[in-house]
Each structure stands twice: as structure tokens, then as C-alpha cells.
């Protein structure tokens, strides 16, 4: 096992990539971002469907936390932030949340910078300038206690909870043992397992937070879905053999391993504790990944049984296939075949192979999702637009 390296940031955090991020504050100007992406393919250009029309305090809190979380993300070395001007949470409101990071940032507003074409030109120049500015930063040794690893599952089948999530759980335990921090969310997929997770809380307060989080998720699922709530699982999950949310949940929580749960954080909140952390975020892959990324995780394992190719901008995502069939059917997209476990492979061996791959990815090797550009960027909202 070789050492891990990264890019040290001024706030003491470490990135494992040194990306230039090009981010819009609001969906109205996605075309500007697309234009920049054509001219500066090396930059991570993100578009999204958010940024305005939802004025409630909770939606604003999430919006500001996710957008600033991406700019502040340790894998981002510099940012071109592009606003429109009249949106509810504009670049000016975002700036105070990100300036303290000491990374290069340039800000434009389409309504003040000559319209979309002119702003795109300025953005292209700025992205190239920042790319050049940060390109000489060297990698240095990354202490394990500065590493935050996210565990995610999506497009699960009944084998996800038998092979892939069990293997990821073994990696989680190994990481915590090394002093790293592991985070997983997807509160809807914890329904039915409150007693199992609360037993592992570091104290009564954390146990209470776990129970409340899962109770809220369950209540919301019942409110929104009514009778369908008993199957808060997709038809694909059921085709795969999972019959109830509790069955899916048991397989889901395996991915965090078996260590003590030290903290429950809100959606997109940066943890202050080490070891195993739970995030109060939704089960939907895209929304969940955004919350885990905004929490500062530098790398993610993502298990899938049905086969989703989804990755995340600026964050290497290691796809773990739960069965050999989907691994072979989607070899372009899958980094690990946990189906080996039912073919006689020992769990320790698979865990060691996954840890080795993770070290190589931390040190610069690209995951399949990175190579294929399978970035998904969407995040949770709680109210309809007004």
C-alpha cells in the first residue's frame, strides 16, 4: 500500500483533484456554461436546474450550502462563478461564503457583463487563466485523517446488500481504523433500521438524532406517497427481488460498515467529527451525491446492481457492481466487480483490492465515471417553485 497524496488548501483541507469549476448560480444561464465547456474542456463545467423560484428559508439554505459547498470543495482549485443578476440567490450572496477559502475565483453576471455571448468569452478567458495559475501546484502527502470518503448506493438489486454494500462496509471499517472519516446518507433507505443504527451511536444524543432523522423520513414518505410508502423502492428494485423498504434498508446500511456512529450531519453540512458519520439526506442518487459532496468528501464508492453510470462533478466516483452480470454488461462504467463474492472470492481479498484501487484513484488514476464524463449535478429541494 503506497501513501496517498493530494493538493493542500489554505484552510488545511486536502483535495485529490485540482479542478477548475465553472458554475452558474441559476439555470437561466446554463447556455453560457455550455459554451465555456466547448472551449475549455479541461474545466469542470456544471449546469443545473436550480437557483431561483424557491424562496423559503430551507430551500435557500440548501441552495447556498450546495453551491458554496461545490466551490469550497477541496477537489476544486479555482472557480469561475457566473450569475444572471436578478436571481433570488445571486453571485453576490454566494461570495461571502466562499472568499475565505483563498482559492482563485472570478465572478461574472450576465446582466452586467454584456449578455450571454460576451459573458461566455470572459468566462473562457478566466477559466484558462485559473487553469494556468493552479497547474503548478504539487501533490503532497495526504494524512489519512484528512480524508473523507462517501458511501452511496443506487439502482440497487437484492445483491447490492449481499455483495457490494458488504464489501464497501469492509472498506468503511478499514478506513475508520486508519483514522479516515466515512459518511453515508439516504435517510429514506434507513427506514426500518433505526433500532439497528441507534444501537451503534456514540452516545444517547446521537442515537436520538438517528431515530428522529429516520422517523421524519418515514413520516414524509407516508405523507407524500400514501399507500405506496411501503415500497419506497423503485420497480427496478422490486424486479431485483427486494420486497419492502426494510429489506432494502438492511442491505443499504451495510455499506457504512460496523463502527460507532459519531455524528449525524444535515444535508450538505461539513462534519466536525471523525470516524463514521450519517447524513440526513434523501435517497435519490443525484440529490444524495450533492449532499455528500458538499460535506467535503473527496472520493465516493457507489454500489449498483441494476447498473447506473452516474458520477459527480469534480468528485471521483468508484462504481461497484453487485453482480458479475451487470459488471460485464456495463464494463465501460463499472470499476469493481463485487459479484466475485458469490463466486468464492474472500471478502478480505476484495476489500484489499478495493482499498488499493481507492489509493490509486486518490493519487490520480481516473475512475470510469471520470473517464466517461458521467457527471450528474442536481440537489434536493423541499418546496415546489412559486
Amino acid at each position: 500500500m503506497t501513501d496517498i497524496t493530494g493538493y493542500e488548501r489554505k484552510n488545511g483541507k486536502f483535495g485529490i483533484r485540482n479542478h477548475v469549476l465553472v458554475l452558474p448560480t441559476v439555470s437561466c444561464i446554463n447556455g453560457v456554461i455550455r459554451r465555456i465547456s466547448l472551449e475549455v474542456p479541461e474545466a469542470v463545467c456544471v449546469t443545473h436546474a436550480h437557483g431561483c423560484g424557491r424562496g423559503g428559508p430551507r430551500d435557500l439554505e440548501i441552495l447556498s450550502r450546495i453551491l458554496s459547498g461545490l466551490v469550497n470543495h477541496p477537489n476544486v482549485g479555482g472557480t469561475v462563478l457566473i450569475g444572471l443578476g436578478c436571481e433570488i440567490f445571486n453571485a453576490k450572496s454566494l461570495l461571502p461564503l466562499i472568499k475565505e477559502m483563498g482559492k482563485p475565483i472570478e465572478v461574472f453576471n450576465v446582466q452586467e457583463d454584456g449578455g450571454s455571448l460576451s459573458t461566455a468569452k470572459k468566462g473562457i478567458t478566466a477559466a484558462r487563466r485559473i487553469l494556468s495559475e493552479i497547474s503548478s501546484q504539487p501533490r503532497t502527502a495526504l494524512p489519512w485523517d484528512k480524508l473523507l470518503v462517501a458511501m452511496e448506493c443506487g439502482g440497487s438489486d437484492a445483491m447490492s446488500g449481499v455483495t457490494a454494500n458488504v464489501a464497501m462496509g469492509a472498506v468503511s471499517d478499514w478506513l475508520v481504523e486508519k483514522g479516515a472519516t466515512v459518511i453515508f446518507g439516504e435517510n429514506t433507505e434507513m427506514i426500518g433500521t433505526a433500532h439497528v443504527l441507534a444501537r451503534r451511536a456514540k452516545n444517547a444524543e446521537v442515537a436520538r438524532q438517528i431515530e428522529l432523522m429516520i422517523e421524519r423520513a418515514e413520516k414524509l414518505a407516508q405523507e407524500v406517497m400514501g399507500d405506496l410508502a411501503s415500497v419506497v423502492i423503485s420497480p427496478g428494485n422490486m424486479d431485483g427481488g427486494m420486497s419492502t423498504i426494510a429489506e432494502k434498508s438492511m442491505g443499504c446500511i451495510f455499506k457504512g460498515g460496523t463502527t460507532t456512529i459519531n455524528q449525524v450531519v444535515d444535508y450538505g453540512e461539513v462534519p466536525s467529527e471523525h470516524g463514521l458519520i450519517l447524513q440526513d439526506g434523501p435517497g435519490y442518487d443525484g440529490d444524495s451525491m450533492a449532499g455528500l459532496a458538499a460535506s467535503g468528501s473527496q472520493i465516493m464508492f457507489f454500489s449498483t446492481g441494476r447498473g447506473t453510470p452516474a458520477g459527480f462533478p469534480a468528485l471521483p466516483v468508484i462504481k461497484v457492481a453487485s453482480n458479475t452480470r451487470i459488471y460485464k454488461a456495463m464494463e465501460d462504467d463499472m470499476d469493481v466487480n463485487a459479484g466475485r463474492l458469490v463466486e468464492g472470492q474472500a471478502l478480505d481479498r476484495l476489500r484489499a483490492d478495493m482499498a488499493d484501487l481507492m489509493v490509486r484513484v486518490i493519487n490520480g488514476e481516473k475512475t470510469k465515471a471520470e473517464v466517461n464524463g458521467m457527471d450528474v449535478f442536481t440537489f434536493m429541494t423541499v418546496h415546489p417553485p412559486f
Partner: protein
Amino acid sequence: MKENILIIHSTDNVAVALKTLGVGERAVAKGIEGFPALEDIPASHKIALRDISKGEEIIKYGETVAVSTRDIKKGEWVHTHNLESKRWKK
């Protein structure tokens, strides 16, 4: 004979099919005597490891994941047609 079902926890009353089992095909796992599948069991779906009465808990991962809605015989397919969620009963 090669294992074709997986028992995740020792207290489970269902196992996971590692491949699709046809009617009459023997289900084989570590530590148990093989028994015939009473119907087709799709790969990654559940097969009853013993007779389960109506209203009995379905145990997987050593935890309750559902409740049966009718008597289920050892070797039968266990899925949404013969169980319900314990938390949100229909």
C-alpha cells in the same frame, strides 16, 4: 454440488437465489441440506428456507424485513405476492 442460494444470517428464514432456479431444482447452501424449489425463483430473489405461517415475520440479515400474508412452504418464492411491509400494512 455448487451453492446456488445464499443464507446471509443464521437466523434468516429466507435465502437469496444466486442464480435463477427452475421448478424442482435443488437449492443448495453452506451448512444446510439441499431442498427443491417449488416454483421458479428469479436470481437475487428470496426462497423460503422453511415453512412460514401466515402472519409470521420474514427474517433476512437477522432482522425482520416483512410479514407473510399467507402460509408459505419451504422452497416457495417469497416476494410482494405473499408478504407485506410490517411498518406500513396495506
